[in-house]
């Protein structure tokens, strides 16, 4: 599989989809104008990766400081496909702002919904 690396912009995150090293990372703000268009190739890649192409260990780092409601759905779809996917050892880290009293809300939404994935909260 080809890896995907996308640079961060003011309204879209840095993205690493690295099949060679089993690393999946989203970092920054995410509210692109056409959210579904933005996520479509990423979801395609993830579907392929979690369809028998995972490394022995896969680490997923979600470092999103803000995302819009359309992204909420795309992230839901990504967690959904990971939960249903084939993997050996999967570590998912959700980074949150410990200075923000609402910082854990999004983590709780996804960790409660996808209990099997055992998503970990990591303060930054």
């Amino acid at each position, binding site marked *: 599989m080809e890896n995907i690396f996308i640079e961060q912009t003011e309204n879209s995150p840095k993205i690493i989809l690295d099949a060679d090293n089993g690393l999946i990372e989203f970092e920054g703000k995410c509210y692109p*104008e056409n959210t579904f268009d933005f996520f479509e190739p990423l979801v395609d890649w993830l579907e392929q990766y979690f369809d028998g192409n995972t490394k022995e260990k896969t680490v997923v780092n979600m470092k999103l400081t*803000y995302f819009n*409601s*359309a992204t909420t*759905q795309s992230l839901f779809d990504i967690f959904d496909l990971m939960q249903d996917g084939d993997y050996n050892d999967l570590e998912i880290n959700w980074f949150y702002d410990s200075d*923000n*009293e609402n910082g854990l809300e999004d983590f709780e939404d996804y960790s409660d919904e996808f209990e099997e994935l055992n998503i970990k909260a990591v303060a930054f």
Partner: protein
Amino acid sequence: MCATDEKLNICLIVDDGVIYEFHKTINEHSIIQTAKSIEEILTKNNAKASKIQNVYEILIEVMQNILNYSYGNVDLPDNRREATGSISLSYESDKDIYVLKTCNLVDADQKEEIQDRLYQIQDLDDRQLRKLARQKMRSREDNHEKGAGLGFITIARKCSEPISVKFVAVDNGIEQVLFKFII
């Protein structure tokens, strides 16, 4: 405060004193710049981090809503758009609340849909809103090319009072919609 020309009016009012104002058409660039400006101003005014985050997030949601659903929005090359609307943000220090007001035009057939969506969530607490959001994500019942139909739920979770909306008929088949969000 509603713009009727092809400009977006944004002003920040603190206890009735305008301290920030500019005019722009709503597009991806102006949403980014407006959100950054508001975030910087609220930070300089020592607003709480959670308030800043909530105002910032609601502002982006409502501007993207106007961009996507406003009457007369214009499709540009590369699947981009421009729209017209107005936004104002004020702060009431005695209550420690921010009041975000928006105004734009919509097709009259959107009026009932907006009212229905707000009616569905107006009496829900955060736990119920969260449950409804998950239900919509699981069922993908409101998915469409511009969003997931979760915008009002997302906004409502960040507001301290129910979202209020008023419609004013301005022409045959066109309504002016005025939202008020208390944060």
